[in-house]
């Protein structure tokens, strides 16, 4: 909402400065977004008089002018065709900044002759596109006077943001009312005098039965004959231009003016282009109208329209039609002021994609009680500016009754806001805003006795009547807000809240702790945390088992962000691709966040996902650089699982990783086939290629929610049983089929003697000469830890034999000779 300071002063008697007004507006909840003060840009330009203009000795098109200025007589070189002796002009002095040419004027020499300033065109002052010559002012202009004062351009424009609850502030008068309530002046009378009609209204308006109850309950119309349309007066044009509207013609400008002045949209028809009576009704399916923006709109039956005998002439509350619009030739005008339902207007406007000042107001709610005044105000302006003779006003339907009252407990205001706002002040504020306060509480005799004041109760609720221009107020809470904002929240003082005695309880849930731990662990493993978008493109989602319609965003901002991610890997891989494009080939990234299995709330799961691409290290002198492989991903997953409390030694490696992994180089770590805690492996070459990534690429995902939480609630650990007896380590090498999994062999060896064998580890895998084709050699070390007595050779041999037998049984492997 834009307006100018002088416009505001039409409604507000005030001595307040611009700064005071701006500050108060923001504090009242009418947040000032911009103030444009013409004096900032144009305040330095002053009026001059061209005393003489001689031909420049060295240039045909230039003249050497002697100009009387605020700073005395100055020589100014000018190339404008109209630069001549005897005219009043606008002078820019050396040091002045000229906005239209983005230049600061300096004393200079033009073709050998000194010039001490510039005479400006309208374009140079950014007043219009006019640049055929310099500005010529009438004789009355005084030399030395500021141009903006002479031209009455010195009127600062203020733009405020309007919250959806304040349709009343979409008119200058509503803004003035707020400021008056704050104490920044007095609200002037806004009464609109009635204009007597001279003849019967020749155009009758009918409300169709189905629109009359809600969609358009009331419609006022008036015919004015014999008007003369044309450009509106300068004061009106300047105000409209200042708030960003283009003056069109007096009749149209009047409707825009009243829209901004009172928040009351109007429409004017050229009465001679209206065929027969007007009817307000719902559109018929497929009816069309060419609106005032010269675009054709196809209407549907939920839309309220105004039609004559030939068809649709206006879209109710949104925009008039081009066919019956006013032009410079209009001599008879029909003024419409109606009330249109906010919800329907919003839906129609959204469906037709029309953003008009009328829609903006009707969908927030205009003051229905002001509807008849709207016609009268417009009539007055038409008669004043265009002449003519008015008909009687005709009314179809009834102004909707919005009268309602709510109780306000002043103690509640104080309790909610935490500020001591006296009851009398609360009443004053509400009444200044136009609310009507009846106080059935206990009336003290002293206060009641004060001459001229209404009796004021000391306690008890106040019954508050709501003005017709406040459709947003629906109860006590809204009244509290009105009082609080006018009383000024800036004055609010903080008040401490009590703290619990003692040391606070932990506030995070075990899962929240786990999430934070996962992040820290993965970063500690050398990975960099990313936050990638939750929506990705369909093709990427499809590569990872997603991309279904259920996870589709209906209105994505781009096709790259159309589907909720089924997995965190595609986002990380795309991030890696972007980094590779920037020349970073080796990287490790991770993210902890939600993946989406479906489109319903809570069809999601927490993933902790990491990605390693390229090499383990940059090129270095120590030979530690090697390509990443699946064991890097497995190590990351295991490290995280261990930190999060998963029983890592009990996890089963399963060859059931999803299809976006390399089928031979990926796996799942789980507590059983149905309880996966992590997946890891090399990404499928096709997926890597599809995401434009250069490999090798390995990744993993840990599912933190799947890891069982410890059942015991105690901090006590199981006792540690340490033996002082020497342990013994024995090495074995087994030849097994090449596809035998090491885990199977290790488990078999470990299980051979649960009492004595403390650990078994794999230390070599060999395929090549001296091992048969299709076989491999796995070398393991078993550590034996006696508990009662040092092991004898016989005992050691016996365990070794058990290990060999167990491995043979489990894997078919034989001890390598």
């Amino acid at each position: 909402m834009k307006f100018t300071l002088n416009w505001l002063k039409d409604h507000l008697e005030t001595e307040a400065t611009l700064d005071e007004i701006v500050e108060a507006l923001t504090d009242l909840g009418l947040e000032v977004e911009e103030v444009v003060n013409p004096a900032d840009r144009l305040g330095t330009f002053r009026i001059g008089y061209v005393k003489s203009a001689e031909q420049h000795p060295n240039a045909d098109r230039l003249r050497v002018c002697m100009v009387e200025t605020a700073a005395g007589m100055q020589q100014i070189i000018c190339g404008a065709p109209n630069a001549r002796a005897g005219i009043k002009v606008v002078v820019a002095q050396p040091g002045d900044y000229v906005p239209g040419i983005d230049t600061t004027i300096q004393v200079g020499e033009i073709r050998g002759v000194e010039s001490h300033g510039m005479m400006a065109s309208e374009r140079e002052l950014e007043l219009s596109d006019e640049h055929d010559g310099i500005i010529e002012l009438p004789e009355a202009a005084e030399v030395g006077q500021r141009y903006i004062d002479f031209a009455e351009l010195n009127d600062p424009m203020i733009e405020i943001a309007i919250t959806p609850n304040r349709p009343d502030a979409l008119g200058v008068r509503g803004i003035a009312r707020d400021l008056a309530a704050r104490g920044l002046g007095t609200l002037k009378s806004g009464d609109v005098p009635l204009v007597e009609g001279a003849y019967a209204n020749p155009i009758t308006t009918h409300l169709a039965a189905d629109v009359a109850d809600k969609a358009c309950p009331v419609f006022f119309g008036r015919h004015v004959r014999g008007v003369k349309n044309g450009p509106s007066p300068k004061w009106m044009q300047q105000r409209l231009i200042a708030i960003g509207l283009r003056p069109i013609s007096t009749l149209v400008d009047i409707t825009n003016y009243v829209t901004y002045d009172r928040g009351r949209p109007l429409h004017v028809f050229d009465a001679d282009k209206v065929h027969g009576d007007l009817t307000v009704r719902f559109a018929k399916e497929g009816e069309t109208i060419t609106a005032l923006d010269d675009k054709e709109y196809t209407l549907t039956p939920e839309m309220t329209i105004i039609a004559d005998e030939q068809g649709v002439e206006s879209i109710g509350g949104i925009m008039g039609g081009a066919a019956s619009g006013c032009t410079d030739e209009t001599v008879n005008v029909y003024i419409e002021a109606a009330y249109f339902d906010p919800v329907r207007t919003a839906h129609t406007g959204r469906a037709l994609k029309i953003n008009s000042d009328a829609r903006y107001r009707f969908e927030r709610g205009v003051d229905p009680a002001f509807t008849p005044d709207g016609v009268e105000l417009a009539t007055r302006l038409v008669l004043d500016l265009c002449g003519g003779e008015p008909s009687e006003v005709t009314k179809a339907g009834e102004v909707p009754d919005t009268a309602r009252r709510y109780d306000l407990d002043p103690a509640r205001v104080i309790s909610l806001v935490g500020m001591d706002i006296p009851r009398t002040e609360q009443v004053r504020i509400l009444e200044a805003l136009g609310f009507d306060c009846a106080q059935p509480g206990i009336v003290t005799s002293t206060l009641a006795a004060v001459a001229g004041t209404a009796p004021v109760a000391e306690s008890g609720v106040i019954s508050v009547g709501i003005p017709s221009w406040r459709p947003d107020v629906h109860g006590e809470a809204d009244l509290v807000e009105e009082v609080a904002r006018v009383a000024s929240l800036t004055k609010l003082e903080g008040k401490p809240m009590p703290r619990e005695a003692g040391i606070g309880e932990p506030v995070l849930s075990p899962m929240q702790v786990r999430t934070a731990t996962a992040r820290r662990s993965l970063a500690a493993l050398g990975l960099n945390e990313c936050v990638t978008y939750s929506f990705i493109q369909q093709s990427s989602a499809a590569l990872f088992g997603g991309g279904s319609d259920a996870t589709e965003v209906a209105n994505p901002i781009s096709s790259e962000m159309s589907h909720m991610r089924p997995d965190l890997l595609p986002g990380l891989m795309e991030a890696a691709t972007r980094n590779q494009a920037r020349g970073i080939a080796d990287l490790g990234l991770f993210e902890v966040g939600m993946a989406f299995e479906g489109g319903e709330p809570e069809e999601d799961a927490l993933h902790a996902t990491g990605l390693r691409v390229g090499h383990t290290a940059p090129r270095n002198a120590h030979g530690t650089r090697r390509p990443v492989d699946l064991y890097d991903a497995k190590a990351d997953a295991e490290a995280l699982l261990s930190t999060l409390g998963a029983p890592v030694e009990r996890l089963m490696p399963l060859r059931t990783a999803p299809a976006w992994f390399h089928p031979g180089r990926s796996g799942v770590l789980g507590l059983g086939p149905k309880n996966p805690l992590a997946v890891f492996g090399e990404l499928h070459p096709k997926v890597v290629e599809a995401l434009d990534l250069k490999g090798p690429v390995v990744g993993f995902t840990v599912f933190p929610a799947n890891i069982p939480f410890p059942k015991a609630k105690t901090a006590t650990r199981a006792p540690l049983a340490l033996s002082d007896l020497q342990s013994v380590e024995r090495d074995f090498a087994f030849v097994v089929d090449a596809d035998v999994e090491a885990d199977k062999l290790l488990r078999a060896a470990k299980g051979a003697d649960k009492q004595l064998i403390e650990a078994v580890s794999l230390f070599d895998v060999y395929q090549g000469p001296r091992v048969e084709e299709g076989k491999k050699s796995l070398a393991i070390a078993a550590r034996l830890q006696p508990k009662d007595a040092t092991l004898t050779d016989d005992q050691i041999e016996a365990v070794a034999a058990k290990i060999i037998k167990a491995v043979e049984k489990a894997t078919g492997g034989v001890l390598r000779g």
Partner: protein
Amino acid sequence: MSDIDNLRSTWLTRIADAKDESTLEDARVAALGKKGEVSLKMRELGKMTPEERQVAGPALNALKNELNSALVARKTALADAALEERLRTEWMDISAPSRPGQQGTIHPVSQVTEEVIALFADLGYSVAEGPQIESDWLNFDALNIPSHHPARAEMDTFYMKRAEGDNRPPHVLRTHTSPVQIRHMQAHGAPCRIIAPGRVYRADYDQTHTPMFHQVEGLALGRDISMANLKWTLETFFSAFFGKDVKTRFRASHFPFTEPSAEVDIQCSWENGQVKVGEGNDWLEVLGSGMVHPKVLEAGKIDPTQYQGFAFGMGIDRMAMLKYGIPDLRAFFDSDLRWLRHYGFSALTPPSVSAGV
């Protein structure tokens, strides 16, 4: 006994002259070995008279001890010299780069979220969560934003696609963390103090907006909690968060879910386009807040005549930008490794009240 003196001088010289361990060993054997000169002399003791033996015995023993000591000393000296010689040759270029390690980082959004949690935990707030795909009712209706409310259009909501024939209102990607308020109230009732950090979504993308960002919601309900308590809470938080006294300014505003509502500005200064919080005379809008609307309490199954309280919502990404001087919001979600390394945080410095945030 010039005999013994001669022996001493001969062998001490030989020991001292030994240039390496093997010549030293040769000397030892020649002097003190089974057939060594000194050993042979000791064997001769048996042939001596008791008087002679009484003199020669201790002398020879003393000589033997002296030579043994000299041998050990010489051996140690030789070993020291050998080590010194080895160390002299064992030179490495300490200026050469070490084996590269990997320095992981924590994203600023995570760090700041943890900072906010740590500070509010100290004020007695626990952490509540809710899903990012949310029902239209929880995201809007329950928060007093009915379907025709202009605020709905202004929120730039992302909607989930509905299957043909599914006539339920489409789910939304939550536009704020406020639905968590309702979920928490319904599940736990009043009184309560919670914060709810998380991802939120709005269909907007330009210099200062991304379609996904992070918010933290705050909710405190009790018998007599007021807006003055809210102001204290936020000032206490901001001062701890920015590490200096930060004043706030409350400005009246409107949100459907709070009444009265206030936009909250924090004190700041602007220098060369860089904002500094907690000093100067300017104000920077950082969050929306207010007293929870009675209709919202009712939607949360809480009796508004019994309980009242405040709620607020602020941008985590924005807090991170302000605190750490990060210029561009869009870069938060671009995963540029150079950015992650520059603005990221060490894995081992989680924020805490005891260590500071």
